């Protein structure tokens, strides 16, 4: 049954009228035209669909849209402040931490959530925190370097 669902998407209030059991991924990608979150596996095994819900990384392919009523959702499109990139985005560029780029939005948002919880993570903690996010190109070592470098940068107070 279609119901109106309200939430904040990338700092802008939105209302969608749809079946609340539909997964957030499809509502974002189709109804709202926000294509940063990617379909990679559809069953929560790869992390390509990761978005932030109230600053926490969530698999949007496993999240019914009714569950985000009233929440603040950030996709990769909403992470930069205008032209100023988030330190994680900047670090991914500077560390060449991507190849095909399909997993990148999920990687960055997962790292964001990890650093929100643990601002000063050890390499082991980064590995454990990022382990559910898959990358097929093998950019892993550079992604780890990017998360470490962003963590250092963010300690300087940037967010």
């Amino acid at each position, binding site marked *: 049954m279609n119901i109106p669902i309200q939430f904040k998407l990338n700092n802008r209030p939105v209302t969608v009228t749809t079946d609340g059991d539909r997964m957030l991924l499809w509502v974002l990608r189709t109804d709202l035209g926000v294509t940063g979150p990617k379909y990679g596996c559809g*069953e929560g095994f790869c992390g390509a669909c990761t978005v932030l819900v109230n600053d926490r990384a969530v698999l949007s392919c496993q999240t019914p849209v009714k569950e985000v009523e009233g929440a603040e959702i950030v996709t990769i499109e909403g992470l930069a402040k205008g032209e100023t990139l988030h330190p994680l985005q900047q670090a*991914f560029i500077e560390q060449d931490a*991507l*190849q095909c780029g*399909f997993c990148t939005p999920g990687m960055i948002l997962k790292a964001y959530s990890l650093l929100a919880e643990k601002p000063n993570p050890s390499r082991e903690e980064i590995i454990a925190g990022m*382990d559910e996010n898959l990358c097929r190109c*093998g950019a892993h070592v550079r992604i780890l370097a990017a998360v470490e470098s962003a963590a250092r940068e963010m300690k300087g107070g940037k967010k």
Partner: protein
Amino acid sequence: MTASDRKDTSKGGISAYSSPLSRRQFLKRMGILGGGIIIYFTTGRSVLWARTGRNANIPTDFNAFLRIGADEKITCLTGKIEMGQGPVTSLPQMLAEELDAPYAAVNIIMGDTAQCPWDMGTWGSLTTRQFGPLLREAAAEAKGVLKELAAEHLKSPLERLQTKDGTVFDITAPRKRVTYGELAKGKIIEKYLKDLPALKATADFSIMGKSYLRRDAREKVTGKAHYAGDIRLPGMKYARILRPPAHGAKLHNVDLSAAQKLSGAQIVRDGDLIAVLHELPDEAEKALAAVKAEFSQPRTGIDDKSIFSHLLRSAPAPEIESAAGDLQTGEKLAVKVFEETYLNSYVAHAPMEPHTALASVEGNKATVWVSTQSPFGDKERVARALNLPSENVRIITPFVGGGFGGKSGNPQAVEAAQLSRLAKCPVQVAWSRGEEFFYDTFRPAAIVTIKSGIDKGGKMVLWDYHVYFAGNRGAEQYYDIPHHREAVHGHWGRGGRGHHPFAVGPWRAPANNTNTYARELHINLMAAGAGIDPLAFRLKNLKDQRMIRTLTAAARQFGWRAQKAPAGRGYGIACGIDAGTYVALMAEVDVDQTTGNIGVKRVVCAQDMGFVVNPEGARIQMEGCVTMGLGYALREEVRFRNGEIMDLNFDTYEIPRFSWLPKIETVIVKNDELSPQGGGEPAIICMGAVIATAVHDATGAKPMQLPMTQARLKEALAKA
């Protein structure tokens, strides 16, 4: 200079172009864009065909290689595509270098069949090796034209002119200068590139050979990078297609009535192609679930265990890849003979982006956005399927989310086009992960048998090598063996039917992963039998100086100490040749003998790939190969029974994760005199072997099948 035909029009720009056929359209486009110099490649005799070795059925819809706009912007056009491997950065480097233009002024358009020069496909590490020189030649030609124009403009003799940073200047009066854009303004100039213009010497490079960050990174970290599934057209619908439960299954009955009742769902049927279309992809999925279909279940009796004997039974007669001497003589000379059989399982490409296409067919024209490694191939396939003239089909390639050889065929593009025509609206076909696994063109399961021998001094005297179904790449012998034969039975590109239960195809460095695993593990087993350190054994049996240099570079970085295997230390070694590149890997592993788990602690990768255009880009590819290669070495295999694929998602088909990572060290072995060779594939060929030899060194167990799963390793340990 070659023949040039200049035309003045009201607007200007410069371009290197390649076909008289689409000339009118092109000139029109150039007029809109501001004009240009146009360089054609003449049909039938072009250097392109000489390079690619292709001489039949040459398509005639050639396009421009580069365009210089009146606004100083330079556009590089290529039929190659970007799937992560980095030509989006390295090709503009090559163009800017040869044209003496600022790197930042170069923009790149890739894989659009209406704009870019014809290309066979992005595979085989050929972009830098084959397309690169062609692009540089087009740039050199354009530079010559610019200098001719500048001679008129500056009233200076040609021999006094030089080019730098997008300008032409007089060396005797450096203030006499003019920019490329100013020269291009108000002109359209066509040229036929017939002769090969001289290219810059390596010593004069200032852009090639320097590391540049990826050009597409900002788009990719902000979500602005669009993939095929991100393209939206007004009125488009999403398709979900009815699929069989197993390869070889036949549709008996289908009941569409329940699906038809779902609001907004549109059923489209053309023979066996049955699809549900909806404005929302997840609703289309729901409607498809309401389709009731009965399929026959094939009973082949073949599964992932029995496949090897099935393949051996059905193996075709061999083609001899290389041979020398006489095998019987070799056997007589041998004091020790080694006979082994090596097995490889089917492996999936599993790119993070599944196969996707959006097609818009209107009347007798089709435009298709495809996640493809082969836009020009897709163009022909779509044209054939829709019975349209090829020139009425346009394939546009957005960013591609990984390919690894798996996006060479693209049935989804044909499906989307067929459905778009039937439904009379744009249609997206995006395979689910399950479809991606089901319809993947797997790396073939393969068998290698080797009979080899050494003399008293540890010199190899015999090598009788048979590879079944993998293919020839990497089978050719480079060790110095007087009596050898390399026989290739079947190939990934041929003979799927009757052999494999499903499609097989090229998988990153096709055949070479299998061949290198078998050859290099066998070499180690021989070294162990001879009681010689495996590096020393290789060096003793090699005359190829490039390989000796590459192995030595890896050993130096790794800190290899000579010791005969198994030494209990878990050191592995492997080398090989792929795409013109020499590669040597060394690794250190930990083996848990109770669980059979292999932990890879460290991998050193040394690579001689000739002149390196973008060193950091090359290192990224080496790291990517090492990381991806952990998968086929340790865990990745496709399990199946009677045509049914058991591994349909990442829960059971495990690909490498952060927690698997070894410490990776890369060494670029300098060889600037050699033109650039392949970089996207070579390192991965050694990953199976380097881990297998390390496991053997650690435990004495012989891992005779990839992947080296815990269960298999426990079996091997029990035999050791």
